[in-house]
């Protein structure tokens, strides 16, 4: 899908504005952006909104049901987990981890991917071959096995989760950037810049990169949704964040043992993941429709 090549137009602010206007008109996409924003606000204002300390254990509230069920308590609306901690507060704080991991992994991966992709697409030759082989090797390695292996090697911890996820993630933006660069580098205005004696660095950063950012951003948002799910998968395999930190992935996976007796422990954080990921996906679909129409239809 990334090999599709179309003629590119030189940079123009007006185009960006028009795209933005298109995006704003897409109601579903705007609603999703608002949902994402609400989650982001939640991460910042967590101490203000959360009704309880997310790590406060109370063994006498172990597996307390949600407020509307028998045995529930409105002070703990969504019930309590296996250590009597408030699930709602943990979901609010957990948003921090999920969003942090999603953003940091994607920023890291996209940065590395842009550098490698630009180099491969612009210089071609042996640079392209070497980067291509590295990409092949990483893609040939099943994602989860790679992540599990890295986590086992480096030990648990938030930083290592980010690394384990980013190590391979850069391959995707790299492929996109390379394909786009290959197409753009032959265009007239790039040729013109080269004729004027601009250096490779200047051409890559100033002439090529701005023109290929749309697909990169679109791909980055989609992958961010995916990274949030992958973090949950790592938790499921026992390689999630360290306690007592709440992350949605670890809440779902710790709660799955109770699913027969206390469905609420894993169901609510699961819904939170679905809501956030869905919102990001819908928003990125909107972005793609507005900024990069050749992908959408």
């Amino acid at each position, binding site marked *: 899908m990334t090999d599709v090549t179309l003629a590119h137009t030189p940079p123009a602010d007006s185009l960006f504005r028009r795209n933005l206007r298109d995006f704003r008109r897409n109601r579903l996409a705007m609603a999703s952006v608002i949902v994402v924003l609400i989650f982001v606000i939640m991460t910042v204002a967590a101490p203000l909104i959360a009704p309880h300390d997310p790590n406060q254990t109370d*063994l006498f509230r172990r*597996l307390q049901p949600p407020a509307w069920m028998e045995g529930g308590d409105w002070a703990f609306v969504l019930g309590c987990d296996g250590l009597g901690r408030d699930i709602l507060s943990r979901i609010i704080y957990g948003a921090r981890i999920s969003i942090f991991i999603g953003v940091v992994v994607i920023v890291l991966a996209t940065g590395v991917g842009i550098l490698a992709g630009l180099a491969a697409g612009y210089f071609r030759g042996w640079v392209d071959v070497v980067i291509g082989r590295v990409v092949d090797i990483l893609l040939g390695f099943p994602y989860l096995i790679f992540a599990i292996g890295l986590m086992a090697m480096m*030990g648990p911890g938030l930083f290592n989760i980010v690394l384990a996820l980013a190590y391979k993630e850069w391959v995707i933006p790299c492929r996109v950037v390379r394909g786009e660069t290959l197409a753009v580098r032959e265009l007239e205005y790039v040729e013109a810049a080269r004729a004027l004696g601009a250096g490779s660095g200047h051409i890559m950063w100033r002439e090529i990169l701005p023109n290929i950012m749309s697909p990169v951003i679109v791909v980055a948002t989609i992958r961010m949704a995916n990274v949030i799910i992958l973090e949950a998968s790592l938790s499921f395999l026992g390689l999630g964040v360290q306690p*007592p930190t709440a992350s949605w992935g670890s809440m779902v996976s710790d709660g799955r043992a109770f699913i*027969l*007796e206390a469905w609420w422990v894993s169901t609510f954080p699961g819904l939170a993941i679905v809501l956030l990921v869905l919102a990001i996906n819908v928003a990125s679909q909107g972005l793609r429709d507005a900024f990069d129409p050749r992908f959408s239809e």
Partner: protein
Amino acid sequence: MNALPRLLLATALATCPALMPAAVVAEDLIVGFTLDADTLDPANHRKRETETVIRNIYDGLLTRDPDMRVVPEIAEAMTQVSPTVYDFKIRSGIKFHDGTEMTAEDVKFTLDRVTVEGAMGDGQTSPRQGLMGPVASVEIVDGDTVRITLKEPWPILPAMLPNQQIVSKAFVEANGTAGMATMSNGTGPFKLGEWRKGDAIILQRFDDYYGGAPDIAPVGAACVERVIFKIIPESASRVAALLAGDVHIINELPTFSIAQVKANAGTDVMTVNGTRSFFLAMNLQGEVFDDLKVRQAAAHAIDKDLIIDRILDGTAARIEGILSPDAFGSSELPAVSYDPEKAKALLAEAGYPDGISITMDTEGAFKDTAEAIASMLTNAGIRTTVAVGESAQLTEKWRTAGKPKSGDMYFSSWGNGSLDPFDIFTPTHKTNDRGNSAGYANPALDALLDQAAVEMDAEKRAGMYREAELMINADQPYVYLWVPQDIYGVSKKLSGWAPSADSRINLHDACIN
């Protein structure tokens, strides 16, 4: 949304009678089990779950009754000739599954295969060699008696012998160690039907079974025709399978599922005292826990009873030393009270009036309990962060056998399947031994443990372990926590089966009504 047609399809398939499995005539006994067997070769593994399966196919010289007493099985009688010589008279008329007669020759072959270096073929030694202690030789005397000679006295030989199962010499020689991994020819109550790797092990009743240990009634062929070990690693799925009536026994029933399984009409819960002691190892080579007062503070900070009551649902026995209350040589010890104020006072005396900050390592499976302990420690001034690690990593970090170690505290456990102190006391407390995670070193205790290991007089030996327990109780290298029960979920259709403390699931006497 495209799920709807699929849901309809699913419903249609499920309700279409032609596609439902045909009714079974004689009901199979199905065990929902956590792990598949690694191999079916009794001499080539080192795992409890594997032994549980093998134990239904192969019998041993000796076995354990439901009360963990060692009784003769293939051996008719055991005589201790001297502290280092044991004679086993072999029962006659025992048949292997292929119909051949079992002889003393097979017993000697089996024991040699385990104890002699390189006896597994290809230059390999049995990984179970370590479970047989200092065996010097195995000989046949008088045709039907097998004599085991030890290099030095080892009083727990009878307690360890149920770990070895008798194989057929001719069968091993014909199929090799490679063949033994997937084929079997034992003398046990069941023979191998089909092994669907990773999914199920299907066993069939052996009709020519000699009956098993005479001390464990009933004696005779097994009650059910087929037994199936169905592998279900996810605990929620295992419980769901029991509640749905798909299986009759499940192991490792989580404590929070007890109420639900009891409330369900067709199922019940069975427990047996386990053999695994849980403890907090404190790094005695570290900066804070080299002080006895700090270790005592940690011990006073933890409300064991509350955790046993709320998280373990009352299914554990608290301990003040390393030994389970059921173990040989265990005795009543001075109890450490739950007293957070005293803990704070002890910390202050040790020079930490503002408390200390530490990290507690544990495995993912014990995260909940570890976090509960951590919050208790924190309340008493020992601010504790839980760090969950993988068991392989933690083992390397903490079980350094004398080499320097990092880390503050380790929430861990040690199993003691034989319930003999030798098996748990020595590895966890002797200086620089394998499981001495605390890095405890006490020459007086080392000498006492060495002495107890070879003491033949049971009463004297028990006294030595009592003395040893008092030593460690005073030094507090670990905070000794509890010994959990093994919890099983069972169908009410099941009869004649009770769980066993060594966590084996012997299905010889089990029936389905």
